[in-house]
């Protein structure tokens, strides 16, 4: 009897261990397909007609990608909703897919694909377009260097998966262009590089009208999220910094210990925004070589001793910001941020006073 009981117990134990191991082995977690035309973006692989279930959208503060022309699409699983209980941290349903297509000089170069296959588990993939522009092939996880010229010998590279995750993975994966602020119907007319909004694009209002948000939050139509600022240039500057710097420099980032937070939190309007509190007059880790003692992250009135401006201008790997995803300085942005830092001393005084309070 003892032998029988032991045999049964050991058999059960082995079965449980095998089941557990199979489950951990991934239970065949989905992976990115080999071709872009197999990801569900297109209704017809031959004509590259976009599947009508994929909705286009355009963030009001786009990320600078060396002047690439971009197109973006999202597909939410049938019958699913986006949980926006925390307006600053949307929870997208499992099965959500995003695509972003990059073109330079009129030719498609790469399409990035993000797919939430399990809760908080996203597949990251990039597809490199073929010469005939008929399809794109899954790129290596280590990326593809120098795939297309963007300006005078400077070339675009498809990022590695670890580089993708460097921007998208803070403590949780985030879709940087699909947030309350980015989809707000109160668009900033001075936002740099923004594409015109067309009637077929997803916005907060279209999401609410289609009953795709839970809770419904109709107040976001009446009072759409916006960056409250004392002047149009400050609004545009904070928006640009939020997208182009705040994806890494935010309070939830794995580099939060640097103490820099440039991400705009739509739930905290009216306070001293962290983008100012953590930069204005702060010494920072990186010192402007030409300024030394005067160097500050933002030095009001003095862009030449503001590390933020200096690093935006640089495209030397040793000092450039952002450090990933760009090889060409965003000159319009340098002009915007320089004039913002340089001008309007009264507004700067008020902002500094608010932060000091």
């Amino acid at each position, binding site marked *: 009897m003892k032998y029988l009981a032991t045999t049964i*117990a050991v058999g059960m134990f082995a079965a449980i261990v095998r089941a557990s191991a199979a489950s951990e082995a991934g239970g065949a977690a989905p992976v990115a397909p080999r071709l872009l035309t197999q990801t569900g973006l297109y209704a017809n692989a031959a004509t590259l007609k976009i599947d009508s279930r994929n909705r286009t959208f355009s963030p009001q503060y786009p990320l600078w990608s060396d002047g690439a022309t971009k197109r973006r699409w999202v597909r939410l699983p049938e019958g699913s909703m986006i949980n926006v209980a925390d307006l600053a941290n949307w929870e997208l349903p499992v099965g959500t897919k995003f695509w972003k297509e990059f073109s330079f000089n009129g030719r498609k170069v790469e399409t990035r694909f993000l797919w939430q296959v399990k809760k908080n588990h996203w597949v990251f993939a990039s597809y490199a377009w073929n010469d005939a522009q008929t399809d794109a092939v899954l790129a290596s996880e280590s990326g593809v260097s120098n795939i297309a010229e963007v300006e005078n010998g400077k070339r675009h590279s498809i990022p590695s998966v670890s580089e993708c995750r460097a921007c998208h993975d803070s403590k949780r994966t985030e879709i940087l262009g699909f947030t309350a602020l980015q989809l707000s119907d109160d668009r900033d007319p001075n936002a740099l590089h923004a594409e015109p909004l067309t009637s077929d694009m997803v916005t907060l209002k279209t999401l609410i009208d289609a009953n795709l948000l839970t809770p419904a939050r109709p107040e976001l139509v009446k009072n759409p999220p916006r960056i409250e600022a004392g002047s149009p240039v400050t609004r545009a500057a904070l928006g640009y910094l939020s997208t182009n710097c705040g994806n890494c420099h935010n309070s939830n980032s794995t580099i939060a210990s640097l103490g820099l937070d440039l991400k705009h939190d739509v739930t905290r309007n009216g306070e001293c925004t962290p983008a100012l509190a953590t930069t204005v007059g702060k010494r920072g880790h990186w010192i402007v070589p030409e300024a030394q003692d005067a160097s500050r992250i933002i030095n009001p009135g003095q862009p030449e001793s503001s590390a933020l401006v200096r690093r935006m201008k640089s495209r030397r790997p040793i000092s450039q910001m952002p450090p990933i995803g760009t090889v060409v300085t965003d000159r319009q942005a340098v002009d915007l941020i320089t004039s913002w830092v340089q001008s309007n001393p009264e507004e700067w005084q008020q902002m500094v006073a608010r932060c000091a309070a």
Partner: protein
Amino acid sequence: MRLTNIVWGAAVITAAIILTAVLSTASVKADGVGDAGPQTKAGKTAQIARGKYLVDIMGCHDCHTPMKLGPNGPEWDMTRALSGHPEDAPSLPPANLPAGYMAAIGGTFTSFSGPWGTSFTKNLTPDKETGLGDWTVEEFIATMQTGRERGKGRPVLPPMPVQNLKALSDSDIRALFAYLQSLPAIKNRTPQPVEPGNSQQ
């Protein structure tokens, strides 16, 4: 069936279920170290010893411990072990090298100048202000595995052997960090790297 046999069978089955639950919930990797690191004093001691071994064989001292001249030539100044480029050392000017030369090396063997600019080895001791004292193990792992500062920042510069470091296992990187954090903190603010073509102020 006797009662003792039933009790015996139930006990074996219960033990099997408990063992399964323990195995499935404990975050233990093949190398025996969980994500949270070793939990016992002996385990932590072993981890630090492993880290010291790795630091010694990987040549970390070669660049992160300043050299001084001894009777037989350059030798490590172990009073400043792993504290990086001395803040009071002369600055290495940007290299203006003749053809055939790739880089110049500063006097303490802790600064390097070449086409990328000038790099200064980092203070790896756990000083809060100037070393790794304010780093998390996750930031250290991200740096080693991506070749970028804290996984997101600028590239780690030459002559750091980034390609070798990317091959380190997660547990070995944790061991390195545990050992470095166990060292005496040395306050030594190493300079930030200098862009090519710029003189250091």
